[in-house]
């Protein structure tokens, strides 16, 4: 065809188009600044390191929901199940693997936690392939409830409602021991978050990531152009479960504890809220959301816990009624309007 001969000398428009596409995956200044500030918190807020580790872990959990819900459009209320599975798997590995050579290393624990969650995620992904939002919502919730029941009832394994005690991870890579001030925990959690974020970023901006957004937009057409829709959804659900599992593993290792609280409904709901606060479908939505959520919780919760819960609910109601797309959605809308006005002048 004539196109083939042309393809050796791309037209100027094609060169420009390629630059536009590739430009979307280039690191911006705001992005770099975000991570520099995050790292600088080690020196800026040395007394808040435990809280910051917790934020990083929650951010990772919210990021996992973003991959599944924000990009692929699978509505889930049960991501806490994978968080819990990862926490218990890594916790048990640390508890029983202590002193057993490389197996007790926290990094191995991360893979055990993430891998186990990914396995369960893969197996249950087939339940969310079809059905309306409502069905998916109830199915994911049901799976989480089943995991919750197992965790509570299998006392011989999980310690039941008392939680899993005696989780004592070895030093990271055999060098850095977890300290009382949470320094190791912060650097460790932050590094894991960064690595997984970079991978998620690549996924989202790849043809695979683009295909997920297409499926979210119009499954009928994606099938008509020959896309294996079910395969893609299984893949991203499994990846999302892995991410949530790693977040859970991090939580178990840094707090040296795992409890049924990790798989409870409110864990899934909180993480979803963080993502919605920040903006679903934006890479930084979950991270931004977890920062705001956890800070608000700290400030308002110190007044009274009820105060925090009330304002959380009120914020959520207001967000749904007035601000579509969370904080980042709001910013993107403002930027669009600014460029449109600029273009008109």
């Amino acid at each position: 065809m004539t196109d083939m001969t042309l393809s050796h000398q791309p037209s100027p428009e094609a060169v420009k188009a390629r630059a536009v596409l590739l430009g979307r995956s280039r690191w911006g200044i705001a992005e770099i600044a975000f991570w520099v500030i995050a790292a600088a918190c080690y020196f800026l807020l040395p007394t808040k390191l435990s809280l910051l580790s917790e934020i990083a872990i929650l951010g990772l959990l919210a990021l996992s929901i973003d991959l599944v819900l924000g990009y692929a459009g699978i509505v889930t209320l049960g991501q806490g199940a994978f968080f819990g599975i990862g926490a218990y798997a890594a916790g048990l590995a640390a508890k029983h693997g202590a002193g057993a050579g490389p197996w007790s290393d926290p990094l191995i624990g991360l893979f055990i936690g993430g891998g186990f969650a990914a396995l369960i995620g893969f197996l249950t992904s087939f339940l969310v392939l079809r059905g309306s939002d409502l069905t998916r919502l109830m199915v994911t919730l049901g799976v989480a409830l089943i995991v919750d029941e197992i965790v509570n009832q299998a006392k011989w394994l999980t310690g039941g409602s008392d939680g899993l005690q005696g989780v004592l991870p070895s030093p990271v890579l055999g060098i850095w021991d977890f300290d009382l001030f949470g320094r190791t925990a912060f650097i460790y959690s932050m590094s894991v978050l960064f690595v997984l974020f970079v991978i998620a970023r690549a996924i989202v901006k790849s043809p695979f990531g683009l295909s997920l957004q297409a499926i979210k937009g119009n499954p009928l057409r994606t099938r008509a152009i020959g896309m294996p829709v079910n395969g893609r959804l299984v893949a991203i659900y499994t990846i999302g479960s892995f991410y949530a599992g790693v977040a859970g593993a991090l939580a178990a290792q840094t707090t040296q504890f795992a409890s049924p609280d990790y798989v409870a409904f409110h864990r899934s709901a909180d993480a979803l809220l963080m993502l919605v606060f920040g903006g679903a479908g934006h890479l930084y939505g979950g991270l931004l959301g977890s920062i705001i959520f956890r800070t608000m919780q700290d400030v308002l919760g110190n007044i009274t816990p009820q105060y925090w819960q009330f304002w959380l609910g009120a914020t959520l109601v207001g967000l749904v009624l007035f601000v579509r797309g969370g904080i980042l959605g709001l910013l993107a809308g403002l930027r669009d309007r600014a460029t449109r006005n600029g273009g008109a002048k």
Partner: protein
Amino acid sequence: MSPKILLESRQLVKRFGGILATDHVDFQLPQGARHALIGPNGAGKTTFVNLLSGVLTPTSGEIFLDGVNVTGWSARRRAHAGMARTFQINQLFADLTPLETLMLTIAERENAGWSWFRPVGSRSDFVDEAMSLLRQLGIEDIAHGRVGVLAYGKQRLLEIAVALAQKPKVLLLDEPAAGVPEHEREQILDVVAALPGDVALILIEHDMHLVFRFAKSISVLVNGGLFVEGTPEEIANDPRVRKVYLGEEEVNV
């Protein structure tokens, strides 16, 4: 030697409850065909296309694509085997750009859709092909805007561009010109006329000017069944066809 048959249906039946939407249709589409499918509203044209493309499963009967029985195949598998279609109502990705939409389609065609580490746009041959398609349809100036906010006519053109990007052997166009302004209609006809000669084409259309300019053969579908088949002259002069269309719209040639 007559050209080989690319698409064929044998005794194809589709029932919705008690309604017979497709009534034992035997249909053959040879390579290079320019075939129009016409019929009054509710004759079952779109149902027939949905059966051929795999959106619907037939109640009974068989479908062959390039000699292979594809009756039990999913829409996805048929697409990979060389079948592409457009939709009567736009089925596009509102949050993507036209360029991204085509990049996606080309990547699926070339089995690069699972690629997860390189950014979209790293394959310059894909970008080039997508842009030349957009140019062909006269919409390259809107390559980077959101599809959801495009004018209806432009969306209609993109709808066709997506199907073309699949490089199909068989192309089903379901009312491609419906709702498209006059000057953009010409564009659609030009694009269709410029398609490679070996592609087999089915056009569903209500606009009889378009049908008679485009088609080398015509089938008339009535009440789900194949009513009559023939060349445009035969159809235009067939009194039975005129009767079917009476009250529906005038057949002016």
